[in-house]
């Protein structure tokens, strides 16, 4: 409660507007967590003094830019640039988040700790830049998009400035570690309290920061794996560190998949090796983009085909003597915002083995060969993917909007779908 006076002071100085916004936000149920993360990430950013960092980040963000997100993105970029120049903005923002959090009953104790710490920082800094804060608040409200963006951005910055991001920056490390811990140790029940505790603990332990940093960057590598371009930047520098971290549980990214196998070989590894060997022998080295064991999905061997060789691979999987995947269990598409993905789950009754085949396709021009000529069972599911995601399957005999009808506007499972209403 030592920060009580300071709190009053700061309310006058900096948080007059932020408080109102923060109070309104309190009622938004799921945002606390993302706010924390955002705040932490912003703190991290705020500590970067070089303008070059902001530039690099802006570039990274620009790469991810999707057409529908332009507006919010511009806000974000602007905000980040400001932040990079001024420490105060981020601190105020963090405080706003902290104030919001304070009202949450369960977390009072740990949060007050955090608040006190934050206030110290906040005091050092000049009066809050109202404009930057407003932009930041707006950003906070867009939880999903912003969060992922921030993650990547923060990660990029970390990598770019690995030297600059010294262990002394306890706050950034703590936040990163908390985040990493939450994501990596899901099964260990990383509740909100625990995370808050982690922040406090990490603050005290500056030594742990270096390690947390490594984890964070490793994770960044994993996160970036979804993004082709970010991967190019991140993977180059962080790959070695990422492999060392070997967070098998964050194995969504391909980067970690192979090291994970080394640590614990999957029972299905021989099958994967066999499939890859047979495919590469017959179709050449460059038909597969990637292959790995998906340890989250009952160790199913997963092949990622290249866009142009997708049909060839599928055909081969069905007709090759050694593979013989005669049963199509499932085919569907997913909109990953940076790209579309078609997921095919095949099964061979002859060999009693499954395989998952994936292919990434361009989101703006989602066209792919139909598997209907190979497996008649792909007929309707492909229509469904066309209907709900807008993926066009060339060579499909009767591609129609199977669920919604031809007159429906838009493809609902796309992440940028807006319901069309004639009356509006």
């Amino acid at each position, binding site marked *: 409660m030592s920060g009580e006076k300071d709190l009053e002071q700061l309310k006058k100085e900096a948080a007059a507007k932020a408080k109102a916004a923060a109070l309104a936000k309190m*009622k938004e*149920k*799921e945002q606390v967590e993302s706010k924390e993360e955002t705040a932490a990430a912003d703190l991290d950013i705020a500590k970067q003094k070089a303008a070059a960092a902001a530039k690099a980040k802006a570039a990274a963000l620009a790469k991810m830019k999707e057409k529908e997100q332009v507006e919010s993105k511009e806000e974000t970029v602007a905000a980040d640039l400001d932040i990079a120049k001024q420490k105060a903005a981020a601190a105020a923002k963090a405080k706003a988040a902290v104030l919001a959090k304070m009202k949450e*009953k369960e977390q009072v104790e740990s949060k007050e700790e955090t608040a006190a710490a934050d206030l110290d920082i906040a005091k050092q800094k000049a009066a809050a830049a109202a404009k930057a804060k407003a932009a930041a608040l707006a950003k906070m409200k867009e939880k999903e998009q912003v969060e992922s963006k921030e993650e990547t951005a923060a990660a990029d910055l970390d990598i770019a400035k690995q030297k600059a991001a010294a262990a002394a920056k306890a706050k950034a490390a703590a936040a990163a570690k908390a985040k990493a811990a939450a994501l990596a140790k899901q099964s260990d029940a990383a509740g909100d309290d625990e995370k808050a505790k982690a922040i406090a603990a990490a603050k005290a332990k500056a030594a742990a920061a270096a390690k947390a940093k490594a984890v964070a960057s490793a994770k960044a590598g994993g996160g970036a794996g979804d993004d082709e371009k970010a991967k190019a930047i991140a993977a180059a520098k962080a790959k070695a560190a990422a492999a060392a971290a070997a967070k098998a549980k964050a194995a969504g990214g391909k980067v970690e998949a192979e090291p994970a196998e080394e640590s614990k070989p999957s029972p299905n590894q021989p099958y994967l090796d066999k499939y890859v060997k047979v495919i590469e022998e017959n179709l050449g080295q460059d038909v597969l983009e990637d292959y790995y064991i998906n340890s989250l999905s009952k160790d199913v061997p997963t092949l990622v085909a290249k866009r142009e060789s997708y049909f060839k691979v599928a055909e081969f999987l069905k007709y090759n003597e050694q593979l013989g995947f005669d049963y199509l269990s499932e085919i569907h598409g997913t909109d990953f915002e940076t790209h579309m993905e078609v997921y095919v789950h095949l099964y061979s009754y002859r060999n009693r083995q499954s395989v998952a085949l994936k292919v990434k396709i361009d989101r703006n021009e989602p066209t792919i060969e139909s598997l209907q000529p190979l497996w008649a069972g792909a007929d309707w599911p492909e229509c469904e993917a066309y209907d709900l995601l807008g993926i066009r399957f060339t060579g499909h005999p009767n591609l129609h909007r199977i669920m919604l009808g031809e007159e429906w506007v838009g493809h609902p499972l796309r992440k940028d779908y807006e319901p069309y209403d004639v009356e509006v």
Partner: protein
Amino acid sequence: MLGLAKGLSYTLKNLTRKKVTYDYPNEPLPVPDRFRGIQKFYPEKCIVCNQCANICPTECIQLTGKKHPDPNKKGKIIDTYDINFEICILCDLCTEVCPTEAIIMTNNFELAEYSRDELFKNLEWLDENDENIRKVNKA
């Protein structure tokens, strides 16, 4: 022909068997204690934690709280509490998350109304819905 005769003998035997139907509107349908019916709400127990409104998959619960009238006491008390039974699917999640068992299920399931508006139940109605209250609410 044998198969036909077998079938005939089976149906003939059923003529005298015990009837299995319920005399439903005349006699209330027996339902087990766990049965999920229309909610009952205890305003005095509610601490306005919003968990029920957050967990509701159909977002049919709306509630507002107000400051506690007694200035010495902290926290909030419930001001309005509405459940829209047009979209409520009686999934039981609200009672599952409620920390004080302020909202619980009853075994009443008859909810037919002549107007859709009447399916919008407010705090008073939910408070008065106090028959056949479920005995066990948490596993």
